[in-house]
């Protein structure tokens, strides 16, 4: 197996560019979620980077999903490009209008057609378009949004959490998962995760790619320092069984002081992100739309 060649030079710059591109200046409609949705709140929460990292850790535990990424994507050559592409897609589906989000999903589906093969660890054939794999990737993302917000961001009420899971179903449907297959509540999502758990394992590809992600070489010194906190937070927010699969040590309990420290690191990272061209304008576009939705919601 080839070691990763690429470094994470430009992680912030390229993620920011992807984000700016994904937040529409003049959307034709409010997209599949809209400014009043729980999804927008979770996606704009301070904890979102931790959610993103956690969801990758969860997704990689599915051997077939991991095999697809490992054998077909160029993450070793251009890890940042891969991350930026993923976050651009998520942001487009979340904030884009319906036509744009649908087009983005169609492009991903077209790529998935060619992503198929045999996993060398389990010996099983896989196809990226397989609804079972797509569903795991989806649930890992949604579960991580809830976990990160609950631990480090603005926690959701039980009703809001259920609403978030239900709202997000459309994201899986856009990639070809049937509506009735996608969990629509926190309880249903938990049951699904329990059902899949026996299939999960930490393959060599998962171990390699995730250790790269948790400790990326070539990070600027200052970003690397912040990254430690984000990484620790992501590991901390994993279910204990997932940490055990990776062999990560049980982290010390999250004290108020440590939580504040992690939130500060997220805040500094956010400020750095905001320094990239166009990010502030994109944020303001979203804030304005969410504010309007909020005031319409309370007055109407």
């Amino acid at each position, binding site marked *: 197996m080839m070691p990763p060649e690429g470094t994470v030079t430009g992680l912030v710059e390229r993620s920011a560019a992807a984000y700016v591109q994904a937040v529409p200046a003049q959307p034709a409609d409010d997209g599949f979620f809209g400014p009043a949705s729980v999804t927008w709140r979770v996606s704009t929460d301070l904890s979102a980077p931790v959610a993103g990292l956690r969801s990758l850790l969860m997704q990689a535990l599915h051997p077939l999903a991991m095999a697809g990424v490992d054998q077909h994507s160029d993450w070793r050559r251009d890890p940042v490009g891969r991350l930026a592409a993923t976050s651009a897609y998520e942001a487009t589906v979340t904030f884009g209008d319906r036509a744009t989000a649908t087009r983005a999903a169609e492009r991903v589906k077209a790529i998935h057609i060619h992503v198929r093969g045999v996993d060398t660890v389990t010996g099983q054939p896989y196809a990226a378009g397989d609804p079972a794999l797509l569903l795991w990737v989806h649930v890992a993302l949604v579960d991580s949004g809830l976990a990160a917000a609950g631990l480090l961001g603005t926690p959701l009420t039980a009703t809001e959490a259920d609403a978030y899971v239900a709202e997000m179903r459309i994201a899986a449907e856009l990639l070809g998962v049937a509506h009735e297959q996608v969990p629509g509540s926190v309880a249903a999502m938990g049951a699904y995760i329990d059902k899949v758990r026996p299939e999960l394992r930490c393959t060599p590809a998962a171990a390699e790619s995730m250790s790269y992600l948790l400790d990326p070489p070539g990070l600027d010194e200052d970003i690397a*320092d912040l990254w430690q906190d984000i990484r620790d937070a992501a590991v901390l927010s994993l279910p204990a069984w997932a940490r055990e699969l990776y062999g990560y040590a049980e982290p010390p309990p999250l004290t108020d002081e440590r939580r504040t420290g992690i939130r500060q*690191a997220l805040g500094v990272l956010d400020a750095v992100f905001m320094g990239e061209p166009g990010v502030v304008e994109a944020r303001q576009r979203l804030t304005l739309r969410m504010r309007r939705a909020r005031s319409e919601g309370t007055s109407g």
Partner: protein
Amino acid sequence: MTGRLRKLTLAAGLGGASIAALTLLRGQQNRRAARLRLQRGLAALRLAARGGARYASNAPRLFASAGEHREQLRNDLALQTAEDVAATLGTMKGVLMKLGQMASYVDDGLAPAARRTLSRLQDSVPPMSPELAAQVITEELGAPPAEVFATWDPEPIAAASIGQVHRAMTRDGRAVAVKVQYPGIAETIAADLGNVALLRRMLKITAPHQDVDALLAELRERVTEELDYRREARNQQMFADFYRGHPTISVPDIVPGLSTRRVVTSDLADGARFAELAGWSQAERDLAAETIYRFVFRSLYEAHAFNGDPHPGNYLFHGGGRVTFLDFGLVKYFTSEELKPLVEMVKHLCVDNDPEGFRRAMEDAGFLMAGAPLPTDMIVEHMAVFYDTVRERGPRTMTGAYATAVTRRFFDFRSPLTAYVQIPRSYVILQRINLGLFALLGDLAATADWRCIAEEIWPFVQGPPCTPMGAAEARWRSGREVTAAS
């Protein structure tokens, strides 16, 4: 007499500029490695400041491009609740802005325009909604603005440090400016400064040779000062009293009954903004520059006070050199002992032409390690740039290039002096003379006989007036003495 004069006056001023020569670094063996580390560190701090700086430069553009919807947009983005304040300035954002301000006087890598952007950071935060501002007034003054004041303009006229300024009329008919602090900002920033593990790490990367605890103490002290408007009110009233009746310097009086920890009310002043000076004649610009120069050094020598926030937004210009000075949130008072070596430095170098005395004064101030194996003429040569405008008589034009050169010398790590110099904490703020005053005068391309004006102010010279403004100031000073005696 001499003793009394020294006690009364003392001279950081022009001497204070000289501290720019002295690096923040403590002595180190490997200068090249230290320089690399510092460059990386400064890059880190720049990175931290970048977010806010970009926000500052971008936000107004959004408003400008919105045309007729501008007010609506401003209103829509306004901070509506204390939670909005916490979301905007919490989790280190407010602290980063403060760090950015500190970076703006220790960093030579920022262009003047970027430095100005940084100093405008505070303007970039959206204003409070009228309801939120009214809520703060109610909490602080006991009743809503409509009851406390005869008239109240709900639209803020300016952004202020961690707050905003409203125009109002008091019940006894005084036109006032009311500065209102963002609710919850004190608690938000205090919380971030109470948990310093991350900050400590950032500063360790940023400034590996500095005493991180001292820096944190400095940051905490400064922010705490700024959060309590009562201190600012006291500072401003001190300056207002000191300059009362001055021919060109004006400081608005405080209205004590309407000033609290989070609200400060002062007389309303109106005038041209710094940007408008670009359209004024050079003669007018020279006069304005002369007033600002006199204000900075007269305050330092006589009142032992230095306003550490000399950014362009804190002046209003009225023509004929008359200037109103605003915002006294960051005032540093010097003890006689602190100022004395700075006076000695300028005296020995510029008046007595006594290099050895100059060197001794540097050592006394703690700038130069005693017994450093360096020839005195090398030290003098290195330091001379900081005294450039006052070493000789004759008209000199301030330029941006001069301000930049002074700053660059400050960061000149090739100099053999680097290993033997440092800046004691109480003098660090004076670096703002270079980045604030000299950059400002450079922007104005102001011409004057700065040496001659300095001689008027230098306590060990007390020269005769050398400009019409100097003559007017001398009359004001003698009038003040008469008043004080009677």
